[in-house]
């Protein structure tokens, strides 16, 4: 099960106006052995509510550092706090590195990697670039890096330094939405059409072994489409999607009035796939999941033993007793998440939402 480990912040550097690079020193370094492209999930308490956010590691395997890049998201509690208040000496908690945005490196390999990063999507790609250049001396890397303007380019200097340290092995193509380059090819958004141009004039996709894409959704779709049209298979294209979809501050759950039991049945309101159903269910003998299924709802489930977490839903009103829970973590339970296969109503009224 997921466990959090303590770390100390040793350095906080601004890279651009609204992004910081945070250097961390784990109490237990073994817990933070990582693969390039992986991310850390942090937790922090904001006014009594725990928030969890994931940020990619930007350090390479041989940098001897644990570093993440955190770009401030409008209205994002965690990223704003990290950009404005986080200081050396602060303590943080994070889970061991996770994620599958990587490929196995081999010292003898002579590969050509392609990377596509949009904005802060550079963070995991940078870790991969650094690790490939250091660990595969015969491999080279071509990075297409999209940004709004020159002053929003994260790690611009670091990339220049890498180009100079590994002469001829790293090619960085900056594409700016506005200003900067005079040439049309390097201006605008990175979509399928832009990629087609780049692949015709600048990048040899047929000779490439693996592509990494990290950026906003439309950009990833466009690039993947262009790569497939140039003969890359799904197995050669690695995706990482984070940045744009992380929600801002979570709303606090309305505290339900003390549940008062009146009878042996419960008026249940269950939301599933946007549809709401009301029915009466017994308080014992039937789990919330079973009641939903009995009411002809296609409620999701798999193990029915509180192990797999498929039947997870959120209680919005009322109270339930959860008999077994081997899958949800404390913070999820605090927010009202339950495993419906293990839940029996305690209150006379219950509102459950499977869509949250």
């Amino acid at each position, binding site marked *: 099960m997921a466990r959090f480990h303590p770390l100390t912040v040793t350095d906080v550097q601004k890279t651009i106006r609204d992004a910081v690079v945070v250097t961390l020193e784990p109490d237990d370094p073994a817990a933070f052995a990582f693969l390039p492209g992986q991310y850390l999930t942090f937790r922090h308490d904001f006014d009594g509510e725990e928030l969890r956010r994931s940020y990619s590691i930007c350090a390479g395997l041989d940098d001897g550092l644990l570093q993440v890049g955190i770009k401030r998201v409008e209205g994002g509690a965690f990223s704003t706090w990290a950009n404005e208040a986080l200081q050396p000496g602060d303590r943080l908690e994070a889970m061991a590195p996770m994620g*599958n945005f990587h490929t196995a490196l081999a010292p003898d390999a002579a590969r050509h990697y392609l990377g596509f990063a949009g904005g802060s999507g550079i963070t995991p790609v940078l870790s991969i670039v650094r690790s490939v250049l250091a660990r595969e001396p015969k491999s080279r890397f071509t990075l297409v890096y999209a940004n709004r303007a020159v002053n929003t380019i994260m790690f611009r200097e670091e990339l220049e330094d890498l180009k100079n340290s590994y002469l001829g092995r790293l090619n960085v193509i900056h594409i700016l939405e506005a200003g900067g380059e005079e040439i049309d090819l390097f201006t605008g958004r990175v979509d399928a059409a832009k990629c087609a141009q780049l692949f015709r004039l600048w990048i040899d996709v047929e000779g490439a072994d693996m592509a990494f894409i990290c950026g906003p959704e439309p950009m990833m779709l466009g690039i993947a489409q262009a790569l497939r049209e140039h003969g890359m298979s799904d197995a050669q294209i690695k995706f990482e999607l984070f940045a744009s979809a992380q929600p801002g501050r979570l709303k606090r759950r309305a505290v339900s009035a003390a549940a008062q039991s009146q009878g042996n049945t419960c008026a249940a309101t269950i939301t599933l796939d946007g549809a709401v159903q009301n029915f009466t269910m017994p308080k014992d003998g039937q789990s919330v999941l079973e009641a939903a299924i009995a009411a002809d709802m296609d409620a*999701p489930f798999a193990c029915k033993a509180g*192990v797999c977490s498929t039947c997870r839903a959120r209680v919005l009103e009322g109270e339930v007793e959860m008999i077994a829970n081997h899958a949800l973590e404390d913070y999820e339970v605090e927010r009202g998440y339950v495993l419906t296969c293990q839940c029996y109503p305690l209150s006379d009224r219950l509102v459950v939402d499977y869509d949250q």
Partner: protein
Amino acid sequence: MADTMSIADYLARGGVLSNPENVPPRYRAELMRLMATFVDSEMAGSAGFADIINEAPGIAERIAAARIVLEKADHAGRVLAVMAEFGADTAKYATHQPWTARLARDADIGPTRSGGDMRLSVFHYPLEGWLDAVVMNVLMGRAVTVQLAEFSRVSYQPLAEAFRAILPVETRHAELGEEGLRKLLEDGALEAAQASVDYWWPRVAASFGAADSTRLDQQRDFGLRHRSNAELLADWRADTAALLAEMGLRAPG
């Protein structure tokens, strides 16, 4: 072009997800269900085949059966590792169902599941001896190959990668079954083999699920499915009937 789009649009247009962070609730549920079905089926398949090892007629066959038991358990473990990233308790999961349990040979459960056990219905039926196990392995092996080719395209990249690694090994299991069946047929087991084919054919066919599955549209929008149960079943029927005919066996109706 906007800077962002909803995850639903992204998936409907062929987008790929790569970690539990951005997975919407309903997608998560469908994905977990798909994974639980695979894990339970591999666990039950492996457990059922374990008893068959001792019935193997020779050393090569014994090794083949043992290898199938081993590798199917390994495949369950690989997919369970993906489930673990979503919070599934892997240690508990691996033992939470009696994987060796089987119904009566003449039970007729159609495509239904039993309780919380998500194994495909075909894995609820008992194997009756070496020949029967070999025939079941040939028919189901071909079905798994068809199903895994479909699931290798799922929009959850870590799972697609796991399935792409598993597919060639499962394909080899089906081939081992074919080699075993050819040997049995050379030794004159045609009649017994045909009886086994007749028994397993409809049960393996049922493992493709209902032809009119109501969840398919949703699964398609999520990129978790691309082809329908009926299309996959038709592929399996054609492919497996041809194989049987070539061996001198007949596919029922």
